[in-house]
């Protein structure tokens, strides 16, 4: 492997890891705060990708278009959807066993996947990146690297930074951190936990949808894309330590590197590596790298 290939693989693993972080951070938030094992999280990512495909023409004709306008409309829709979903499907489940929530979110996966098939069809679609991000930059003498992938990394980094600020510097962040370490105590301090749940769920969904929309031009848009990302995100959440944003960031970067380089160095065993990593880490630290709280 020469230097420029190595550099490209580094950039790829960074981009993949950061994108994973974006999806997984929503998952870990929802799990850490609400205690809900949300199997439908992958579907939200899928919904995001399909929004990038289906919304672009609609947004184009009403608002005059633009990539960022589509992103904005998508995220607003996602947050609304999250708010309504939490109210309709989850608000009565917190008293029940965890496994009941698993069943509920499994039902939601099936419904979302089929609604997607009814509304958009089962074809694979490509999504064009916006013109000003479509180019490539040269790396070394022969290789080039697409600007759009750098853009993805940039967006994810900006969001990670934004989340860090929200968590450590705002009142809402304080409530969320408190909620993830002791739910009952937060409730008894007079904080409206139901509202907090709804906000967290909506935010988590917004993050997943945004990740899907941003990823669409690179990954293309296809049926079943949510399920793939779901399992790997659970791996991230568990390696990082449930409810820990910091852990999720570290774990996603780790998985990004292992998966990307695994595919180059040991193509035969690429699928196994990520799970091997997870098993080893959990046998070493049975509660993940960082524990929330």
């Amino acid at each position, binding site marked *: 492997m020469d230097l420029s290939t190595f550099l490209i693989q580094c950039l790829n693993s960074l981009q993949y890891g950061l994108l994973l972080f974006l999806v997984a951070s929503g998952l870990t938030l929802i*799990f850490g705060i609400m205690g809900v*094992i949300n*199997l439908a999280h992958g579907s939200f990512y899928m919904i995001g990708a399909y929004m990038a495909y289906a919304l672009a023409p609609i947004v184009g004709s009403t608002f005059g278009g633009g990539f960022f306008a589509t992103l904005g409309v998508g995220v607003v829709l996602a947050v609304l959807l999250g708010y309504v979903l939490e109210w309709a*499907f989850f608000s*009565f*489940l917190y008293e*029940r*066993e965890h*496994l*009941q929530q*698993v*069943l*509920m979110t*499994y*039902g*939601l*996966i*099936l*419904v979302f*996947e*089929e*609604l997607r*098939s*009814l509304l958009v069809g089962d074809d694979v679609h490509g999504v064009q990146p916006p013109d000003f991000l479509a180019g490539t930059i040269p790396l070394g003498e022969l290789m080039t690297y697409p600007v759009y992938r750098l853009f993805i990394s940039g967006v994810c980094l900006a969001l990670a930074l934004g989340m860090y600020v929200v968590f450590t510097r705002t009142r809402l962040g304080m409530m969320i951190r408190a909620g993830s370490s002791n739910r009952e105590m937060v409730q008894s301090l007079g904080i409206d936990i139901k509202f907090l749940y709804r906000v967290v769920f909506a935010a988590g969904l917004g993050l997943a949808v945004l990740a899907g929309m941003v990823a669409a031009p690179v990954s293309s848009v296809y049926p079943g894309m949510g*399920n793939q990302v779901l*399992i790997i995100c*659970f*791996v991230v959440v*568990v390696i990082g330590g*449930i409810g820990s944003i910091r852990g999720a960031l570290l774990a996603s970067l780790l998985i990004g590197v292992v998966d990307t380089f695994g595919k180059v160095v040991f193509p*035969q*065993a690429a*699928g*196994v590596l990520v*799970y*091997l990593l*997870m*098993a080893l880490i*959990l*046998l070493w630290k*049975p*509660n*993940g790298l960082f524990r929330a709280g």
Partner: protein
Amino acid sequence: MAESSSGNPGLARGLFVALCGLALAAYPLVAGAFGLDLVTKIMVYAIFALSLELLVGATGLVCFGHAAFFGIGAYAAVLLSPASEPGNLLWLLPASMLAAAAFALFMGALSLRTQGVYFIMVTLAFAQMAYYVVHDTPLGGGTDGIYLNAKPVLAIGGQDAGTPWLDLNQAGTIYGFTLACLVAVFGFLAVLLRSRFGRALAGIKANEQRMRATGFSTYPYKLAAFVISGAIAGLAGFLFGVKDGFVNPELMSWHLSGAVLIMIILGGLGHLRGALIGAFAFALLQEFFKSEVIFGAFAKHWTLGLGLSIIASVALMPRGLVGLPGQVRARLLGRPGAVADHTTEGQP
């Protein structure tokens, strides 16, 4: 439990299970080829679901990698069979179960070090490793899977292989054999859960700390439950491989691990018959929504109906299908409090 308020619940439940068994035994008299194959498949899933119920419902260990044992049982059935002549059921079946049990011993010994959601994910990780081993290596035919050339037969002593006792090539025979296995597994688990061992598992589920404090070393119990469960899942996989005469890596995918978990939750955790009911309900709902006679062209979108039914069942039946009679009774007798009761104690 809410059910205990009327008559003799143990008798009623026993009667229910016996009636189910009788109905299944009588079914081939009226069924066509399609129906026979479908119900055989569902009974295989029921055995699979029962094996997971031992872990999730009885011991409180949520295993999300159960398809690995199922797949190993199925692959063992095909790989251990002789290339051209039918294998003998007498050693093929125990060997397949043993293979699954051996993997369960390895996986359980390591993953039982973790707890809760971490346990769920470690079991998933091990199952995914097994999946990628068969998926990416030529060992089991890779992604294409392999065919079973000759289905096993039961031959005793120096019996002529031409006229065996049981020939699993016939749909009727494999139906009967699967039913016999289902009855045997159900009976075995029912006895097991009433034994001292089963009581210890129930204690671990209710409060593991307290069990340890009373002097039980809980780890060997959990490991034993894990291995037994893996062996039974291997039996289900064996039957599945023999029934279809074909295995592929999808038998080990996490989708199947998820589906069987969904079956037992749908049926109602903490009851053996919940696993039975859940397997039938899940598979029959699938067939119902897939049916073109009822839904016409919309049958293509069958998962929508299945998903909505699952959501409705979570919303309306907090204790799964098993809890439904109690819920209806409580509603009729006007005791709204009984519906909210969602304890899952008390075995089969």
